[in-house]
């Protein structure tokens, strides 16, 4: 009895020692909420309000416009190619980095982060310099009638480049934390390399992988800078959703611009919801194991 009482007193003293007075607590929470409201909730609300300001009919017309549909289609094509490729690349790179030691490992780890540190405009220009008419392969491509810049392949390439760190950066810390013992155990039990990957490694990283893929997809659909440089803004052909929105806005079709923007915003919200679910699963699976989530620097 006495011990319990002493424990309770000790606990409440400890609580008092590590807790701020009430006005500071509420003050901090208030500042955080106000900031969120002004910088996140308000803009999001404005998008939907502006999209619907001229009524549902205009809204529907804006998003069912052939140009808008083409932009939506192209966005899905670019993401549909970039995301699976980056998934394969990300798994391969993190497998190599987390499970093996080889010369140049540090360089590879640094290079994976390159697309994050380079401005998207520069990323786009790189491809113009390589494949553009005045670029290295320009004349040869022109002779063979292959179009990369100002065409769909360029957009896909730029999207791949900008989004390739997501999966790898998500998986490397996860795989490093998990170590190689389970794979070694599988080998001693007679499993081959592919069996080990499919039956041991993949199930262990699946939630982390899905999380990386979701982030990668969100960025692939929303990318503006790099894609803008290589796209050429040909309506109905090389405009993705973000580019289409910009054009509409510049031409004072603000209701239409916000209508398409609201679709992107919806995609973002769905992504966010998926991300939260997956994050929760990752945490459950790891049960407090080491795991760092990748924060993307936005440009």
């Amino acid at each position, binding site marked *: 009895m006495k011990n319990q009482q002493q424990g309770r007193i000790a606990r409440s003293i400890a609580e008092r020692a590590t807790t701020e007075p009430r006005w500071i607590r509420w003050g901090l929470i208030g500042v955080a909420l106000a900031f969120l409201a002004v910088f996140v909730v308000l803009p999001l609300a404005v998008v939907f309000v502006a999209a619907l300001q001229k009524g549902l009919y205009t809204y529907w017309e804006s998003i069912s416009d052939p140009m808008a549909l083409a932009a939506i289609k192209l966005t899905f094509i670019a993401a549909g190619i970039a995301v699976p490729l980056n998934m394969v690349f990300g798994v391969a790179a993190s497998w190599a980095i987390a499970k093996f030691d080889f010369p140049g490992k540090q360089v590879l780890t640094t290079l994976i982060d390159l697309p994050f540190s380079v401005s998207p405009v520069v990323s786009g220009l790189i491809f113009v310099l390589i494949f553009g008419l005045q670029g290295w392969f320009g004349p040869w491509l022109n002779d063979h009638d292959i179009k990369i810049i100002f065409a769909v392949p360029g957009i896909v390439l730029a999207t791949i480049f900008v989004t390739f760190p997501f999966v790898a950066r998500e998986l490397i810390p996860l795989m490093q934390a998990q170590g190689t*013992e*389970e794979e070694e*155990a*599988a*080998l*001693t*039990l*007679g499993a081959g390399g592919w*069996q080990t990957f499919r039956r041991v490694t993949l199930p*262990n990283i699946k939630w982390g992988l899905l999380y990386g893929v979701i982030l990668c997809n969100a960025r692939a659909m929303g990318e503006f800078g790099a894609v803008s440089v290589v796209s050429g803004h040909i309506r109905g052909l090389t405009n993705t959703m973000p580019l289409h929105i910009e054009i509409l806005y510049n031409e004072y079709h603000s209701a239409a611009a916000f209508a398409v923007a609201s679709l992107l915003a919806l995609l973002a919200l769905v992504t966010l919801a998926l991300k939260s679910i997956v994050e929760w699963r990752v945490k459950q699976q790891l049960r407090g194991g080491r795991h760092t989530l990748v924060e993307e620097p936005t440009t």
Partner: protein
Amino acid sequence: MKIEVQNVTKRFGGFTALDNVNLEVQSGELLALLGPSGCGKTTLLRILSGLEFADSGQVLFDGEDATSQSVRARRVGFVFQHYALFRHMTVFENIAFGLRVRRTGRPSRVGIRSRVEELLKLVRLESLAQRYPAQLSGGQRQRVALARALAVEPRVLLLDEPFGALDAKVRQELRRWLRRLHDEVQITSVFVTHDQEEALEVADRVVVMNRGRVEQIGPPDQVYHHPATPFVCDFLGNVNLFECEIKNGRAFVGGVPFDLAESPPESTRTALVYVRPHQLDVLHDPVGPNNLPATIKLINPAGPQVKLELTTDWGQIIHADLSQERYRSLQLQPATRVFLATKEMKVFHAA
């Protein structure tokens, strides 16, 4: 199966993990690789398994060269220090894994089920088949790891610090159980440990390693009672070390004459004398040779033996263990001046 290790050397960068190691594991025996951390024992075990390869030297399985054979080809069972259970599989699936991934001669579903059930019974975990590793205690995980390794009917069982991550009580239980299991299954087994008590209690033979070299190989009682090198003597249990000066064929410890069990060769200047705490007796008055004066500092009578800490006149700390009866009959008090008599000792001469 008999294993031979011949002149195996392994380096990691500038660090020599194994330095020309030679070793034979007899068929059906339980061998312990014992040594401090960094002595190369785990590296040697991994080279036996094929998870690591030697820079030079050979590994023979039943006289057949296995040096460059892959892990799969060697058919060894390996139990990892931290169990390395597949965390997304149930206990049942963990044990069945080795059978399921087999390319040739994969048993039928029924065959796998009955084999796994048989193993679950062997490690006494029948009721936990559908649990996940995270839901098991350390000792249970260790037993699952063992069953999983045995499922593929390995030719050798290799265990890396099998009880290292368990608490003292479970550890003792499990190592006795491992000994019984080994007698039942009779598979050639090698286990790595840094715990001398564990090695001496469980193994048929003990290999004492230090800095990538084998110091001594022998049955537990032999390495304990007849250590071949000062390191082995020092590593196996607590020991008091006396440095003797040799003058005119006599040994002196801190100026006190000391009769050695065997007379020193002419050329030696110093000798190292190792005396275990239980090989010392405490006397109130000197009665013969080798009676070192010392002062009692601490007395700890808790436990089967009374542990004394004493200091000599030249400041060396000495540990002595007395039986409870002897302690009571002497009626010792702290700060008393007494004499230490050596009942047995181990002498190493230095040139």
